[in-house]
């Protein structure tokens, strides 16, 4: 009886994922074994878990190590993204408890669910086999379907969950079909093997299976990162989902989508660089423009931020279309900044809205700036950062993305990008107009911030400013992360 040769197992490579999964499972059991209505302690435990995982992930910084027969890799690129995911999960958890209590849906499963989604994202960033990427993506998506429909009593949340589910599953179909065709054309699902095959057989670039496969994969990922014209689900889902989950979705999973997208596109289809470069800039222009233009007319702040998040995906795509190290590093940095500023902005929204997400419109913010000056200032900082004004992280991120495009010769793409930024100013400023320049229409009922949210805001503001003023270290790390 011959034994089957096992691929080299290197558990150290997936240690962060293992740790986080274990923590999530333990929390899941703790949740059912410990009675009581207050589930906040699970959130704190999750944060400890995330911190431990982050430590374990960062410990792998350095030369890249491939494991499981080249299915998964521990490289700086993945680690940088993992940190982004962990941070966005941590921030999202910090802002969850109060909201969930307010909306009467503070089931303890929330936290393990977020952690599992984070594991999925980590797998997406680390996977070098389309199978692993797919599994990570689905682990993430399935958790997100649940999370966006978390508030069972709210019709909006139901709709968000269902819509996200249907469209997410639909896009998964495309992604998978693309993977299948690519597999058929190249004979492997491993990114390195595909790349080697393509290098060895340049003729494959004209193989319809391969080209269609690439296109379908691009379409699938575009769905996931909400790039126009595949963005239709985003506003509804973001608006309907519970606010902390919207914050989470807009930061972590989007970054994860980019991580996988970059890895697949840059490695697996190196020969088609010219073709997908064109594809990407079209996507970038469309995404930025559509996101910004529709955001202009939004009254609901959540929905406005949803469209703005589409636009931000467009900015990131500008860096992606540049296909150079600066662009990739720019995306990394931008995603990190975006996690801070966007979740921060949502945290403020959470504080403002009352049960049932009443007060979610920009008009409801009238006079807020004078009632709660500190909070309004914090929100303004986030919004300026989202708009890309110095001295905030958002500015540095955009600077890098547009620089990458300019360096790659896409000057006009950068110009479209900055014009879009200028357009986006209008709707970000609109929030501030209401906060500072309009008189309040009704009295604020102020529930007060919890310590957790305060910590979240503090971290987010601090990071937004620090990354804006002294971004050097992080940028350097981002640069190192993209030296594959």
């Amino acid at each position, binding site marked *: *009886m011959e034994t*089957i040769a*096992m691929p080299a*197992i290197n558990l150290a490579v997936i240690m962060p994922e293992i740790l986080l999964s274990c923590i999530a499972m333990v929390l899941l*059991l703790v949740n059912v074994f410990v009675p009581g209505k207050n589930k906040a302690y699970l959130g704190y435990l999750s944060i400890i878990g995330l911190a431990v995982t982050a430590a374990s992930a960062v410990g792998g910084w350095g030369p890249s190590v491939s494991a499981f027969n080249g299915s998964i890799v521990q490289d700086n690129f993945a680690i940088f993204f993992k940190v982004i995911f962990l941070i966005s999960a941590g921030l999202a958890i910090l802002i969850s408890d109060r909201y969930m209590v307010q909306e009467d849906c503070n089931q303890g499963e929330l936290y393990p669910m977020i952690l599992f989604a984070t594991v999925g994202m980590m797998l997406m960033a680390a996977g070098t086999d389309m199978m692993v990427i797919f599994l990570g993506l689905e682990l993430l998506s399935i958790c997100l379907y649940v999370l966006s429909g978390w508030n069972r009593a709210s019709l909006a949340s139901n709709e968000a969950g269902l819509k996200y589910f249907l469209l997410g599953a639909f896009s998964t179909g495309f992604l998978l079909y693309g993977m299948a065709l690519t597999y058929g054309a190249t004979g492997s699902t491993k990114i390195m093997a595909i790349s080697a095959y393509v290098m060895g057989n340049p003729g494959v670039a004209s193989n319809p299976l391969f080209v269609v496969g690439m296109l379908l994969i691009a379409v699938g990922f575009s769905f996931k990162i909400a790039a126009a014209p595949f963005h239709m689900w985003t506003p509804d889902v973001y608006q309907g989902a519970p606010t902390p989950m919207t914050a989470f979705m807009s930061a972590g999973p989007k970054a994860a989508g980019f991580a996988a997208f970059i890895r697949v596109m840059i490695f697996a289809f190196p020969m088609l660089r010219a073709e997908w470069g064109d594809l990407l800039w079209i996507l970038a222009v469309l995404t930025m423009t559509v996101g910004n233009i529709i955001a202009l007319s939004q009254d609901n702040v959540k929905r406005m931020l949803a469209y703005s998040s589409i636009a931000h995906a467009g900015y990131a795509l500008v860096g992606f279309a540049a296909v150079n190290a600066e662009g990739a590093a720019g995306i990394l940095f931008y995603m990190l900044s975006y996690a801070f500023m966007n979740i921060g902005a949502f945290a403020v929204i959470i504080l403002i809205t009352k049960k049932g997400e009443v007060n979610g419109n920009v008009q409801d913010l009238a006079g807020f700036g004078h009632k709660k000056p500190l909070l309004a200032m914090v929100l303004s900082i986030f919004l300026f950062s989202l708009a890309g004004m110095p001295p905030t992280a958002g500015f540095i991120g955009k600077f890098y993305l547009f620089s990458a495009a300019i360096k790659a010769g896409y000057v006009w793409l950068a110009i479209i990008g900055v014009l879009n930024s200028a357009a986006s100013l209008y709707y970000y400023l609109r929030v501030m107009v209401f906060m500072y320049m309009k008189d309040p229409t009704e009295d604020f009922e102020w529930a007060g911030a919890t310590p957790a949210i305060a910590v979240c805001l503090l971290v987010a503001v601090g990071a937004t400013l620090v990354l804006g003023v002294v971004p050097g270290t992080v940028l350097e790390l981002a640069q190192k992360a993209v030296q594959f």
Partner: protein
Amino acid sequence: MLGAYLPILVLVVIACLFGLGSVVFSSLIGQKKPSQVKLAPYECGCEPVGSARERFSIKFYMVAMLFILFDIEAVFLYPWAVLFKRLGMFGLVEMGLFIVILFVGYIYVWKKGALEWE
């Protein structure tokens, strides 16, 4: 290759013919005296109340869902079982982990009361 499944096809055809044939035959020779009362759904002899297409207990859905999830695990267990001896120690440990993870979900479901049927 196709030959292996040809007998099955033949069997299917025969079974279908048998089933259809007996239905048709019985409907030909059976008597037919339909009346409105006879065609009403049975409800212990009373007038039927409301539609039958109503909602039913969520429990059935839970069972279906749990079935899908646990059944899918069999997808992994079957090929593993066939190759289990050749996989050796590694395979055993791996499947042990798999089952442990499964048990976490199982315990969760149990504690949540999804397996209760009151």
